[in-house]
């Protein structure tokens, strides 16, 4: 679905991919020092217990799921299964499992898959990964307490498992999730958080909570010849300025960059050749709560979109580490309409619209925002003077990130600025604006438009992907016209890496999630990496 990774993105990758291609034969051995940049700790080594990307960065090294995301092809592909057969009705899949070994020496079998999925869906455990199970037949009954196991999971033999789904959608999208890994059914559950036992390429050597996770190569990893690295260290470093110094000092091998560093690294001859960037599937936006009288008027919402010079903000504040948004779906989405034009910066038009709507003066609202530099208070700071010029007074309502979602889900806001997933599956993420999607799910602005609803329903019933995409494009454009939100930008994720690092992939889902088994370091690495 993600075949067109986005032309721009692909072009920008040119430099990075060229470097990657140069040394085609990976060298084995060495130590790679990676960073997990989204905080100073991880929640748990048991990824099923947490929903955080920060934890996923570590889990990706330790665990494997039935499918995996291929960042290069932009599709889910089989990971723990050698082959799969789809039934005639397209709802039942029979997986032939690989010969794979858990870190404790257990062999993967069909019971492990069934046990893992039952555990994930178990309502008593309230695991975040339960979301990924909803497509499996029988989960609803299991969760409602009407069944003691998921009926859609069937063991054929030790190495064969059959899964029945409730719809025709490609199951890989859900089952590739790193939050839905396969665990060993014989391994004690209470050990998962401290001594994880996965099928991944690296096993845990040393975990210093709040500091780092050190892993070593797992010799019995199922992919032949992988991983290349002997050791993998993941440093938990939330503070960007400290990360910058550590990277420049050669203490860490990669750095996930914010706008300021993106610009600085791009101008630094020593660093600019080793930067990997990708258009991620996050859309940054300001959502308008129709609770506010003015926001019920489409013209007001449009006026705000006209009045903000988002190109300038993207250029100056985000240092071009973002793509100005056109509508909801990101550039890398298959339903992205390349011919669509974003709202131009046109304060006069904005004033006109506001006048028509009767809000020439006196419109005031506050934006609930976290302190995030790319989708938080700093952005609101930049739009305050811009909107002031068309007579709108904006204030900030600063909150901590844990309070933001609370306020939004409890409808306790006038406007918010957030960064939301908008891909890769376009239908799923456009459905967020379907009128029947509750605010607590993801229709945060309580958008309700009959035409839009019709398009979504139509797309849901369409089996031909090409036709489906056309319908979704239309819906996406309608959304832009209705402007329930201010479309700000799609994130450009950027990672700088040391020259001796190879095998990093432009993962549009989340750049910080890397296939560690493919990473290797060359002979130019310093002694501390050997």
């Amino acid at each position, binding site marked *: 679905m993600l075949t067109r990774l986005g032309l721009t993105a692909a072009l920008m990758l040119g430099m990075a991919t060229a470097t990657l291609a140069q040394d085609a034969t990976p060298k084995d051995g060495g130590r790679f020092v990676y960073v997990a940049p989204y*905080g*100073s*700790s991880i*929640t*748990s080594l048991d990824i099923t*217990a*947490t*929903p*955080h*990307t920060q934890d996923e960065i570590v889990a990706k090294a330790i665990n494997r799921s039935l499918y995996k995301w291929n960042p290069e092809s932009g599709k889910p592909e089989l990971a723990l299964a050698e082959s799969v057969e789809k039934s005639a009705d397209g709802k039942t899949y029979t997986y032939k499992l690989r010969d794979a070994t858990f870190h404790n020496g257990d062999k993967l079998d069909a019971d492990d898959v069934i046990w893992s999925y039952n555990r994930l869906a178990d*309502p*008593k*455990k*309230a695991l*975040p990964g*339960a*979301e990924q199970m909803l497509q499996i037949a029988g989960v609803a009954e299991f*969760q409602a307490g009407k069944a003691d196991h998921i009926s859609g999971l069937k063991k054929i033999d030790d190495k064969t498992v059959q899964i029945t789904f409730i719809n025709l959608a490609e199951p890989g999208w859900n089952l590739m999730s790193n939050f839905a890994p396969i665990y060993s059914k014989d391994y004690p559950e209470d050990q998962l*958080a*401290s001594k994880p036992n996965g099928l991944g390429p690296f096993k845990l050597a040393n975990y*210093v*909570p*709040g*500091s*780092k996770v050190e892993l070593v190569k797992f010799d019995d990893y199922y992919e032949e010849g992988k991983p290349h690295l002997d050791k993998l260290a993941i*440093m*938990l*470093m*939330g*503070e960007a*300025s*400290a990360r910058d*110094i*550590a990277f*420049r*000092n050669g*203490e860490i091998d990669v750095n996930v960059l914010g706008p300021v560093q993106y610009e600085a690294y791009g101008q630094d001859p020593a660093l600019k050749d080793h930067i990997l960037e990708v258009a991620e599937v996050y859309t940054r936006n300001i959502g308008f709560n129709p609770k506010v009288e003015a926001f019920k008027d489409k013209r007001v919402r449009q006026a705000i979109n006209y009045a903000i010079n988002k190109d300038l903000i993207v250029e100056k504040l985000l240092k071009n580490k973002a793509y100005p948004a056109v509508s909801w779906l990101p550039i890398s989405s298959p339903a992205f309409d390349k011919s669509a034009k974003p709202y131009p910066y046109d304060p006069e038009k904005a004033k006109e619209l506001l006048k028509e709507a009767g809000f020439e003066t006196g419109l005031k609202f506050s934006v609930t925002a976290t302190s995030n530099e790319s989708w938080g208070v700093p952005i609101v700071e930049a739009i305050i003077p811009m909107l002031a010029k068309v007579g709108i007074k904006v204030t900030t309502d600063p*909150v*901590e*990130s*844990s*309070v*933001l*979602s*609370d*306020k939004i*889900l409890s409808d306790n806001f006038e406007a918010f600025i*957030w*960064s*939301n*997933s908008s891909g890769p599956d376009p239908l799923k993420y456009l459905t967020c604006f379907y009128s029947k999607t509750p605010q*607590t*799910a*993801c229709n945060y602005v309580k958008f309700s438009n009959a035409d839009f609803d019709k398009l979504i329903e139509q797309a849901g019933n369409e089996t031909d992907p090409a036709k489906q995409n056309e319908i979704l494009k239309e819906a996406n454009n309608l959304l832009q016209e209705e402007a329930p939100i201010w479309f700000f930008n799609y994130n450009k994720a950027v990672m700088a890496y040391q020259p001796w690092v190879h095998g990093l992939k432009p993962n549009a889902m989340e750049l910080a999630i890397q296939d560690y088994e493919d990473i290797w370091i060359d002979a130019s690495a310093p002694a501390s990496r050997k």
Partner: protein
Amino acid sequence: MLRFIFRRTLQMIPTLLAVVLIIFVIFSVIPGSFISSLMAEGRNAMNADVVAHLNSEFGLDKPLLVRLGDYLWGLAHFDLGISYRTREPVWNVIEPRLWPSIKLALTAMGFAVVVGVPLGFLAALKPGSLFDTGTMMMAVSGLSLPEFWLGLLLMYVFALQLGWLPSFGYHPGSIKHIVLPAIALGVSPMALLARTTRAGVLDVMNADFVRTARAKGLTEPRLVFAHVTRNVLVLVLTTLGLQFGSLMGQAIVIEALFSWPGIGSLLVDSVSTRDIPVVQGTVIVIVLWFLVINMLVDVAYAAIDPRIKVA
């Protein structure tokens, strides 16, 4: 002495109880919840069933007073509860952070004492001299810098420009890694100690018994070591205890900056993810640290100063 320690330990209990109560009340009215923090990344909304399950798992559906009662009951059995975030016993979450925190506090305090006390001493021996004025201006300056700013500056100079030291991280056996955070954390107590020591030495040097010692014809070093040092120590000990005691709590900024896996960064993490049992646990640990250190200071007092009676 043992009875003294025992009595002081008993005296800690009401203080600790009051702390628990205050923290419990504060965090029962805090906006946001552990569950909302799970959704902070804006990716997956949780369905209502899951939320309800989590609420009942953590006992959040019970009334406040019942929760407080449960908590105190647990505390009486040395049970700090279960972390919302990791679903492990809180103690298991805190325990690995304890030693790094203590190590950082010890090193920072060591630095503060080793540098601050002699500086204050030397400054006081020649009051009004250039050295004195210079040292004291530096001490006041040390107290006037935002910690994270100082930390960044140290990182920038000693790690990046000079390449002498690593800029971040925790390695159990490594001395190099602790230097920068310890200095960044130690500068402010160092400055305070230098000032207190200076004032103390000036006080003591002007004391009548020092004049007596001079009249006895003692050499200056002998006078300083035999008669001034211990008396100054008595004066400095209070500052030392208070600084050392609050260091674990004051370290939160430095720990966050240097990716130091201590109690402070755990506290910040837990507050921002609303992992209330861990917040309570860490605050209890931080307060206990303060109380124990200050008890030790009192014990040290009793050992140094015969005027203080123990029993």
